[in-house]
């Protein structure tokens, strides 16, 4: 009748173990939602990164076709000193996030297939990021993976951030 969509985060090596997302926590380890154990330290200078996160939409159940998968934000962002980037390339070969646990992740462009990044908050409902415009019909089937990373500089404010509004959109017939 209608596709059931769930969001999965992939962690580990080599192909990534899928975890159904109930919370996306940017952190400094390659783990799904490690509560507050691996925060991103605010650097005295320079830049710290979260480990990059690989996410995808999973479609299952009785449905005909899904296409035109997009993602966008409300355009506001997490505040001063904090940027959330999305890899310009989508649907690339999964690659486990790397870095120094508890300190910083490696920059997303260290991912073999990611050559450029864009601030996710620049994608809004009127100018959304295309995630997958192929036709999905399997049970289950998966939209192309996206890779995200939080970037923190010295002007950021410490503490848990208020959740931001990010929207996935897809068309179903």
């Amino acid at each position, binding site marked *: *009748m209608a596709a059931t969509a769930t*969001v999965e985060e992939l962690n580990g090596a080599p192909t990534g173990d899928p975890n159904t997302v109930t919370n*996306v926590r940017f952190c400094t380890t390659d783990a799904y939602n490690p509560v507050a154990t691996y925060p991103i330290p605010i650097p005295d200078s320079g830049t710290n990164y979260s480990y990059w996160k690989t996410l995808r939409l999973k479609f299952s159940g009785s449905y005909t076709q899904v296409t035109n998968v997009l993602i966008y934000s409300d355009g506001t962002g997490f505040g001063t000193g904090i940027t959330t980037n999305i890899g310009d390339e989508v649907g690339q070969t999964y690659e486990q996030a790397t870095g120094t646990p508890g300190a910083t992740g490696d920059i997303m462009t260290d991912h073999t297939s990611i050559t450029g990044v864009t601030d996710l908050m620049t994608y809004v409902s009127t100018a*959304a990021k295309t995630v997958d415009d192929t036709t999905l019909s399997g049970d289950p089937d998966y939209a192309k993976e996206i890779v995200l990373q939080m970037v923190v500089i010295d002007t950021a404010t410490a503490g848990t951030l208020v959740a931001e509004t990010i929207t996935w959109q897809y068309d179903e017939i």
Partner: protein
Amino acid sequence: MSEELKYLWVATYKDESEFPQFNTDGSENLFGDIEQDRLDSFCFISTTGHKIRLDVKDDMRLICFRRHKINFIGKGEQIEYVLGYQKTLDGRNIKAMMIVDELGNVTLVDGDVNENKQ
């Protein structure tokens, strides 16, 4: 996630027979199985009986899909029901669509609803 649909479609053919999204036995017909060359009209009918109807001319190609929006963790699903047509007029590709939200609000779109993609 998947929620109950607020609008279902019914296609009516020129001979006045109907081809509904769901048959009386609960089985579902696919939009792609509609015989567009026999179409007289196409209707969204809400669970409360609200109807939105498009009269289909011979030169129209019907467009119908559901647009889902979910939050970052896959919750809070909202569904918009998109109905429209495409036709070629004087060699130009013409599209007109309407978006119906779950409350029955209708937005008319002159052109394609997919012009927000980057």
